[in-house]
Structure formats: structure tokens, C-alpha cells
């Protein structure tokens, strides 16, 4: 494994230019390990979105032993820099490339056209082509379970949500959380603060402090730092972590965490490329596929609540329970799902309303 940063990868530009002069890279030679590249949007750090992808990469490396070698490039900004980095990886013989952020979508598609024999896997996007597959996780399933825990542990009936940007992925998380919360506490409310940044520990803790001052006694977040958890710990309220287990930052505050797990998927995809059986696919996995898990409960969560969440988790895995099954109204009272109807994937991926229980008006993302 080699470690490259965006800055030092400049040095490989020359090599890249040379490689570009050659025809698109040939198939890997038999007996040689498969070279796999990963592009990360932020530094790996110790918790968060990229950290979970890197954990998945390591798990895959361990599972496939010497048959693969991996290289990752971290902190790659979305946009033109990303295209150069992805092209760089493809040109240096990486036959499978995972691009792990939404904003890599267009660069991935573009580079994929130039390297038809290289397989690309893009996370959380929607554009595909014959050598670009996409994958994502049903984060909202975990959010629903988190909502149940929050609803049972809150005394004020107000939950605070620190959110980054009003895109459907974040909105469905908020809504699933509210549905879970209200399934056990029908009067509970979710207050949302948008900080307009994926990563800004200062702002995230300001938002968390504000929510606490407005009587929220359980927090969660859809941002990348550990600031919400740390603020909850300092102010002695509860919190549910996102992306990674953050119990280290909030030993008393963290009730549980909605965590992402990519290792099994990465192993499976790499195996299929090794076997020559890779097919372009669109994977949206959830609790059932082991992509979404809850971190171990804090011991202050009573056993009956834990059991209740475990039961809901099993039902979601078995396909018997969905966070979004009608009757479901939005927070203006308009019916969004008739009784007994379950939301479709298409409806989910363009969710642009708050469900009942969420305070305020959703800022339009368009």
C-alpha cells in the first residue's frame, strides 16, 4: 500500500502524462495482484465518512490477502482535481477504482470513457455507464433505529439535528429519525439546524449549543466532525453519532451510533473483478446487507429499549418494516403516503419535504 496526498501526487503528473501517451491500460497480467485505487474526499482521520471507507479498504485487503494491492489518495476536492487524480490512478494500472464521494460523479464517468477496460465504482451517485457501477447505503434505516432510542431517552421530547446541506440523502435521514422518534413518543419534535458545511467543528458545536439552549436533550448530526458529540458530552445531554462510533468522544453522551460498513461490499466487488465476473450494477444496501449497523448501546440505555431497537432492526432486515410506510404526512399536513403504502426508491431519492414531527420548513435544495 502506498500513501499519496493530493499535494505530493503532483510529482506523479509526469509519469501520468507519459502513461497517457500509451493506449488505455491493458488487462492485468495473470499472477500479478490486482491494483485497486481509492479516492477520498477528506483526510481519513479517526472518525467519519472517509474513515469508514478506509476501514472497508483495509478489511478488503485483509480478506483477499496478496491478491490485491491498494492505493488511496485522500483529501481530493470534488471537481477538476478529482478528474486528474482518477485519471492518474487509471493510467498507473489500477484496474478497479472506488470514488467515494458524490461530487466525483462526473469526473468518474469522464475518465471511465477514456479507460474502457478499467472498472469504476462510484459511491452515492446516480450516473452509470458500462464500466461504472454505483453503490450506496440505506443510511436512513439506521436513522430510524436511532430515532427510537432518542425518543425513549429524551425527557423534554425535543431532539436536535445538526445537518450539513438540504440534499435528499440528508433529508431522508432527518425524516427517518423523526419517524423513529415519533413511533415511541408521538409528541416528540426534531429541531434541525443547517450549518452549510460538511466539516466545520466550530459551527457544528455552535449549532449543537444552540439546540441544547432550545431544550433539546438528545442530539444527532449529519456532518463530518465529532463536534456535536463533544458538545453533548460537555453539556451533559445525549447524542447519537453518525458515520463512526464516537463513544471515545462522548463516553456518557453517546447512546449509540449509526455506522457505515463498506468492507464486505469492497471485498465482493474486488473478488468479482479477480474472477473476471464484474458487472456494472446499482447497489443500494442497508441493514440487511450489513452496510449499516448500530454501534453498541451505552449502558444507560435500558434493556427493554435495547430489545425494542433490536426487534425493529430485525424487522427492517427481514423487509417487514420500513421507516417510510403510510399513512405518512409531511409537516404541513399534506398526505405523502396512503395507509399501507411503502415509499419507492425513486420517491426516496427525491425527498424534498419534512415529515410530521420535524420543526420548520425545509430549505429547497434546488
Amino acid at each position, binding site marked *: 500500500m502506498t500513501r499519496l496526498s493530493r499535494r505530493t501526487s503532483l510529482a506523479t503528473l509526469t509519469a501520468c502524462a507519459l502513461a497517457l501517451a500509451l493506449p488505455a491500460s491493458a488487462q492485468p497480467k495473470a499472477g500479478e495482484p490486482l491494483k485497486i485505487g481509492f479516492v477520498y474526499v477528506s483526510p481519513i482521520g479517526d472518525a467519519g465518512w472517509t474513515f469508514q471507507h478506509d476501514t472497508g479498504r483495509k478489511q478488503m485487503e485483509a480478506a483477499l490477502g496478496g491478491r490485491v494491492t491498494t492505493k488511496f489518495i485522500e483529501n481530493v476536492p470534488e471537481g477538476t482535481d478529482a478528474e486528474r487524480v482518477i485519471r492518474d490512478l487509471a493510467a498507473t494500472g489500477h484496474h478497479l477504482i472506488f470514488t467515494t464521494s458524490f461530487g466525483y460523479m462526473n469526473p468518474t464517468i469522464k475518465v471511465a470513457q477514456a479507460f474502457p477496460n478499467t472498472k469504476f465504482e462510484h459511491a452515492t451517485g446516480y450516473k452509470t455507464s458500462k464500466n461504472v457501477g454505483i453503490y450506496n447505503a440505506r443510511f436512513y434505516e439506521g436513522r430510524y433505529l436511532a430515532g427510537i432510542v432518542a425518543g425513549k431517552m429524551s425527557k423534554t421530547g425535543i431532539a436536535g439535528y445538526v445537518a450539513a446541506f438540504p440534499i435528499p440523502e440528508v433529508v431522508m435521514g432527518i425524516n427517518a429519525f423523526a419517524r423513529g422518534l415519533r413511533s415511541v413518543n408521538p409528541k416528540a419534535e426534531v*429541531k434541525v439546524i*443547517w450549518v452549510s458545511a460538511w466539516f466545520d467543528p466550530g459551527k457544528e458545536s455552535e449549532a449543537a449549543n444552540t439546540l441544547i439552549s432550545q431544550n433539546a436533550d438528545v442530539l444527532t448530526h449529519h456532518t463530518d466532525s465529532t463536534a456535536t458529540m463533544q458538545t453533548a458530552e460537555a453539556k451533559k445531554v445525549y447524542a447519537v453519532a453518525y458515520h463512526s462510533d464516537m463513544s471515545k468522544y462522548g463516553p456518557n453522551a453517546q447512546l449509540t451510533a449509526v455506522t457505515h460498513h463498506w468492507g464486505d461490499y469492497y471485498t465482493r466487488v474486488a473478488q468479482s473483478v479477480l474472477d473476471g465476473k464484474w458487472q456494472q450494477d446499482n447497489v443500494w444496501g442497508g441493514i440487511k446487507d450489513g452496510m449499516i449497523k448500530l454501534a453498541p448501546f451505552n449502558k444507560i440505555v435500558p434493556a427493554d429499549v435495547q430489545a425494542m431497537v433490536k426487534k425493529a432492526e430485525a424487522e427492517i432486515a427481514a423487509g417487514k418494516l420500513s421507516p417510510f410506510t403510510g399513512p405518512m404526512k409531511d409537516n404541513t399536513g399534506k398526505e405523502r403516503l396512503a395507509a399501507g403504502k411503502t415509499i419507492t426508491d425513486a420517491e426516496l431519492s427525491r425527498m424534498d419535504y419534512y415529515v410530521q414531527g420535524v420543526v*420548520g420548513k425545509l430549505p429547497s435544495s434546488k
Partner: protein
Amino acid sequence: MMDHAITLLLLTLAAGTPLVFAALGELVTEKSGVLNLGVEGMMLVGAVVAFIVATTSQSPWLGVAAGMAGGAALSLVFAIVTLSLHANQVASGLALSLFGIGLSAFIGLDYVSVIIEPIRPLTVHGLPDIPVVGVLLFGHNPLVYLSLALFAAIQWFLSRTRAGLVLRAVGESPQSAHAIGISVVRIRYLAVLFGGACAGLGGAYLSLVYSPSWAEGMTSGRGWIALALVVFANWKPWRVLAGAYLFGGVTLAQFQAQGMGVELPSQYLAMLPYIATIVVLAIISRNAAVIKQNAPASLGRPFHPEG
């Protein structure tokens, strides 16, 4: 409601403080005629050095001192390049920011997951319990008081002392200052180092008090906001202070509004702190003659003693 207002005031002071440190330091640097755009980089280096020293020595105050030293050390590089080697200040300052961002990420690599005991607010026995005034006067973090003391000291230094006059003279007309025997380069070195130490202090506040942790790029652009504040505050310390608190206060007020479910798109609310700060500071300093009077006349121009 009263509780709300008090919480908001407390949080506002806390949110404005890193900007106060960085912007006041930059103000002094600019008053000497040197434009250092490296504030973001110096803040980050200050933040990471403070964090590393505080965790390894178990003394947060040693960390604060180290953060100042870290910021100053980085500004020394800038001073050597621009003051002794006469490089372009704008380009060098930008390079310093980029360098500081990378350097802080590199030296902080092993400290990303470290947890630290933050510097706690002072608790003089009983005092914060006095209703309303108690918590407003005595409930802050020690570094917040330090920032206010720094403000008072700089205000006094610039307007009431001979040394302050010398500093301003160097910023206005280095040739004249040189002619009457003032060492322009030495004064500018000191001003740059002071600015670096203040930026480092602002960084230390972020990593030891405000969000006690180290993460790459944790200043999230506050160094650039501090730079803008100095210009919009028209190089007056009290306006820097007002601008910093206004910026912090409006950020928090829009969060409050969101939490209460105000029906305004969050994108507009997110713009508010920037717009409000610029508009207010532009209005209070709208007189062109006054701006000209306050802006250091030789800002950004290299000085060659030989003429």
C-alpha cells in the same frame, strides 16, 4: 427569554474570540505597513502546536504559549522572505497560508484522535451565580478575558504610546521613519511576529477551548474572515472587536432562528453573518477621507533602506 438572551450573549463572545485574536494581530502587522495574508495558515499551525503541547505536557496553558510561538515561528518565515529578501508580500502571504494548512495537517497527523481536557471557564466562587450580571461578567473562558485585555492593550498602544506612534509612522512613510533614525525593518519584524503570535493564539483558542480537538483544516476559513474584518473595520481596533462579535452573533442568531423553525431558507440565513458584518462595517466607515486616513499608506509595499 432572558435565559435565551444570556446564552446567546455568552456564545457570541465565545464565537467571536478567535476572530478577535487573529484580526487584532493582523491589524498591528498591517499598521506597520506589512500585509500578511497568511493568517489562516498561522492559525492552523497555532492550533496544532497548542494541541500537541497541551496533550503531551498535560498543561493547557503551556499549550496556549506554544500555540503563540508556533504562529510566530511561521510568521518569521514570512518576515524573512518579505522584509529581508524583499519578496512580494501578497504572493508570500498566500503561500504562507497554503504552507501552514499543509504543515499543520502533517505535524498533526498522529493527534487527530487524541482527546483533551479543555480549558474551563473561570469559576470564581459564587460570582457567576449573581443573577444575570454574574454569568455575563464572570462566566467566560479565561481566553475570552485575555482577548478583551489584548484589545485594550492594542488600543492603548496604538493611540497613546510613543512606540505605537513609531509603528504607525513606519506604516505610513517608512522612508521618513528611516530618515529620522528608526529601524523600519526591525519594527516590521516585530509587528509581523506579533501578528503571528496572535493568529496562533486564535488557533489555540479553537483547538483547546472552542472545539477541543485537532482536525485538519479546523479553522474553516476563519483566518480569511479575520483578514477581511481588518479592512472593513478600517484598521480601528474597536471596530474589529465589534465586527468579530457581530459576525459570531449573527451566525448564532441564525442558528437560533433555524431551531425555532423560522421559515427562511437556510442558505440565506447562512449568508447573513457575512452580509451583516460587511454592511454594518461599511456603513460605519463610509467616509472616504477617514478611510484614507486610517489605511496605512505604505501597506504592502516593500521597503529598501537605500531608497
